[in-house]
């Protein structure tokens, strides 16, 4: 687990200094751990585990938008698990259950085999349609159609800077809408 934590911390440092490939690898690496913990939390609260993907996406968005609160001199895992725990409690509360989530839920997942994505997440997809047109088009193009920022700019006939701004604002509004639910 020590090794895993060090690897995550290293990847996050590279990500912060501008390495998007490292960031992508990091997000890929933490997702199965988050998924296993979300499933365990749901199961313990007596909720169907096929909703875990919504929670995973919720956590990933929070990690992304709050990554400036991570101290680059501190290990990454405790920071990540604090956010994950917060989001999991939030999700379970919204589903009408008030339960205590143990932080060990996350630390323990190393022993687990990676869990495959279950039901297709619905919340982000639903909220995507309620965004302003520019943000929705940009997110649609980059997320769903896998287009690059440059291709998206060409397709929508706007500058790459405008794509970047709309992309970030889209992620912020998406997160806000998920929280308001």
């Amino acid at each position, binding site marked *: 687990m020590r090794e895993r934590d060090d690897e995550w911390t290293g990847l996050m440092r590279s990500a912060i200094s501008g390495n998007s490939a490292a*960031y992508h690898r990091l997000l890929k690496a933490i997702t199965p751990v988050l998924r296993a913990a979300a499933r365990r939390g749901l199961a313990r609260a007596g909720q169907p585990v096929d909703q875990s993907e919504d929670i995973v996406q919720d956590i990933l968005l929070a990690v992304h938008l709050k990554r400036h*609160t991570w101290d680059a001199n501190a290990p990454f895992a405790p*920071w990540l*698990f604090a956010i994950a725990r917060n989001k999991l409690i939030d999700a379970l509360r919204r589903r009408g259950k008030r339960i205590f989530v143990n932080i060990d839920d996350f630390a323990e997942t190393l022993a687990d085999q990676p869990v495959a994505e279950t039901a297709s997440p619905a919340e*982000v997809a639903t909220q*995507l349609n309620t965004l302003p047109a520019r943000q929705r088009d940009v997110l649609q193009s980059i997320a769903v159609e896998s287009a690059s920022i440059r291709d998206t700019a060409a397709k929508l006939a706007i500058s790459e800077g405008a794509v970047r701004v709309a992309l970030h604002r889209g992620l912020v509004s998406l997160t806000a809408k998920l929280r308001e639910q």
Partner: protein
Amino acid sequence: MDTDQLIRTLAADNTHRSRPVGFVLALALLAAFPVSLLMFFAELGVRPDVMTAMHDPFFDLKFAITLALAAAAITIGLHLARPEAELRGWIWLLAIPAGLLVAGISGEMTMPQRLPMMTRMVGHNSKVCMTAVPLMSLPLLAAALIGLRHGAPARPALAGALAGMMSAGLAATLYASHCTDDSPLFVAAWYTLATALVTAVGALVGSRVLRY
């Protein structure tokens, strides 16, 4: 959107850089401070005998206490804006303003006084203090909440309470230059009450707006 697509999208947004929470908090407080200052000069103003008062250690102590409160609350509040932060080990910073206050009270006790204790504590300005400090806190409280909202506090009500304390500390610093009650007993009673009020408002609002 499946999770792989979301991850790719987040990675595409990696170039976006957010400002540190401390920077946003400082900016927000600096923007709000002139509003409180305007309220202060419009309604209260500095006391006329300020030049002589400055030589009174009990007048100066008021500023030491209120500024220590603001500084401690800002430090703890910024710490709590991190998701994994714990209060343990940090709450003791609030012992600095409290200690200054206790030291001031004991200091005053050792000196001969013209007025009885109760009179000094009740003072002449308690109503103004209880109104002015909370009102001048409001713009600063809004700013503090905006600043902390940029972070990811695990306990929104607690972070909101700290936002209340920092704004009350700054507002009380302004008020202290108007108020002619310099007895630490007056400070202990009314400044503390006003701060508690703003802290409660901060906790209440924070529990709603500081969730991330």
